[in-house]
């Protein structure tokens, strides 16, 4: 065959294969309509919730669920005005989101609810009305919490009067409001107990009855020097101990015992030389802890007084047993909020309210892995399911 004829023959063969061969039939079959994805029954260890308070558009609060391994967004919740954070009980069957709505978007009658979402369908399945007093503030973990048995939801109120709303998740009802005048936030210490931090550096320890009403409320002595070196309220918890960093980087462990909360010996996050170089922690959620290995992660930067909310480009990792810094992770972008997954190969998540991306690192090696872009307007706090 001549070259030209061979070419024509090949072309004809190829064309017929395309049109007639079983593998070659290229038509996409019709797809079913109305398919809605559902999440698996149990969350994966590398999932994380990215809460978005939408600081430029308060009515549009959101919470994004992200798979840290694939870098994909799995779904989200629409969570209303001045949104703080989702709350995830250990059973994982539902997700709680304290939400605020105005009858006319930004005005009208305010109503506060706790919306209950099915954790696999991310749909509301219930709603609990609560007093319209929930604190509207920069999100932090202490703004709301579940008691240790997940039975009661605690929500910090600020009108500016200070109190705590208690919700029974079994009956799905508002139980009562406990006044906590002079003291802020809620840090659970047991199935029926939590503490708040008071303006003079004392703690307020509150115990609930089995039904969630007030049993006991007692102030401790002053544990923190709020004038010289205040404790940043963005604490993290490992077992029975809450860990707080002060503005000057002193780590304050507060341990819940049967008798109440005890201040454990403090230790510095920075050496005198590092302090002289103005290293300090900063950000919105500047601490994270990996419970199993006893590692504390802290976002740090160099800055003077008044920079306790500034994001940083380094995460320093400490061994909680020896109090020694064991690792420095340099981040790709400035971050102010971190979270660490709790499995044996943990991921380090980082975001900043100044951008809407989530950066993901290998928490052990510090190696940068991936970034998930476009997560709302102003991501605030990261919560593990």
């Amino acid at each position, binding site marked *: 065959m001549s070259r030209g004829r061979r070419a024509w023959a090949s072309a004809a063969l190829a064309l017929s294969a395309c049109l007639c061969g079983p593998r070659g039939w290229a038509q996409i079959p019709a797809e079913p309509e109305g398919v809605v994805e559902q999440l698996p029954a149990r969350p994966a260890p590398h999932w994380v919730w990215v809460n978005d308070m939408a600081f430029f558009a308060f009515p549009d609060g959101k919470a994004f669920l992200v798979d840290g391994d694939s870098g994909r967004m799995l779904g989200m919740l629409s969570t209303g005005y001045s949104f703080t954070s989702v709350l995830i009980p250990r059973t994982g069957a539902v997700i709680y989101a304290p939400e605020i709505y105005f009858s006319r978007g930004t005005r009208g009658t305010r109503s506060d609810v706790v919306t209950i979402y099915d954790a696999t369908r991310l749909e509301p399945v219930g709603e609990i009305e609560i007093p319209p007093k929930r604190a509207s503030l920069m999100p932090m973990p202490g703004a709301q919490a579940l008691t240790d048995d997940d039975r009661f939801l605690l929500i910090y109120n600020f*009108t*500016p*009067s200070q109190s705590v709303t208690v919700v029974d998740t079994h009956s799905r009802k508002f139980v009562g409001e406990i*006044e*906590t*005048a*002079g*003291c802020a936030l809620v840090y659970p210490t047991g199935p029926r107990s939590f503490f708040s931090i*008071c*303006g*003079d550096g004392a703690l*307020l320890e509150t115990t609930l009855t089995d039904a969630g009403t007030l049993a006991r*409320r007692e*102030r401790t002595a002053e544990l923190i020097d*709020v*004038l010289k070196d205040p404790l940043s309220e963005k604490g993290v918890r490992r077992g029975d101990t809450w860990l707080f960093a002060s503005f000057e980087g002193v780590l304050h462990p507060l341990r819940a015992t049967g008798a109440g909360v005890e201040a454990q010996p403090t230790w510095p996050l920075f050496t005198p030389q590092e302090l002289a170089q103005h290293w300090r922690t900063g950000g919105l959620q500047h601490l994270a802890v990996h419970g199993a290995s006893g590692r504390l992660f802290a976002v740090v930067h160099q800055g003077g007084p008044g920079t306790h909310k500034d994001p940083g480009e380094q995460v320093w990792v400490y061994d909680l047993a020896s109090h020694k810094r064991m690792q420095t992770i340099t981040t790709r972008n400035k971050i102010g909020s971190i979270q660490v997954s709790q499995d044996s190969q943990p991921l380090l998540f980082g975001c900043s309210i100044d951008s809407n991306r989530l950066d993901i690192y290998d928490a052990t090696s510090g190696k940068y892995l991936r970034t998930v872009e476009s997560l709302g307007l102003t991501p605030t706090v990261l919560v593990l399911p």
Partner: protein
Amino acid sequence: MKRGALCAAVFAITCSAIALQLRAGQAAVLTPPVQANYMLNCMGCHLADGSGAAGKVPSVRDSMLILSRSTAGRRYLVQVPGAALSPLSDLELAQVLSWMVRNLSARTVASDFTDFTAAEVADYRRAPLVNVRERRAQLLAVAADRAAR
């Protein structure tokens, strides 16, 4: 070149003269310390005239005078967290509370009102209140009862 330098010199001298005049005019307007302490520690919630906001922050325009007449009431005024937990020293707090009664009360303050003392404040603020609403209502009810009789 010379002209430019002269211009700059004259300008600088004129500016300094004006600045000095401004600074001289500035010296007189320091806020009195007790009032400054009220502004920095209390005014944010209680407002410049003590009226607060209904349902959120109680008005002190009637209650402070009433409560200051009894020991229990005076103790309460020191025990409220805004007072007891504030960074003010005992003396500073005593002065602010007295200032509040004298300047924010709707009624004329009777001559039998005695200023708070540092010792009094030191004693009372050792036990800050947590259940403020209940206590306040209780004390005002007792005072109203007494006034009615």
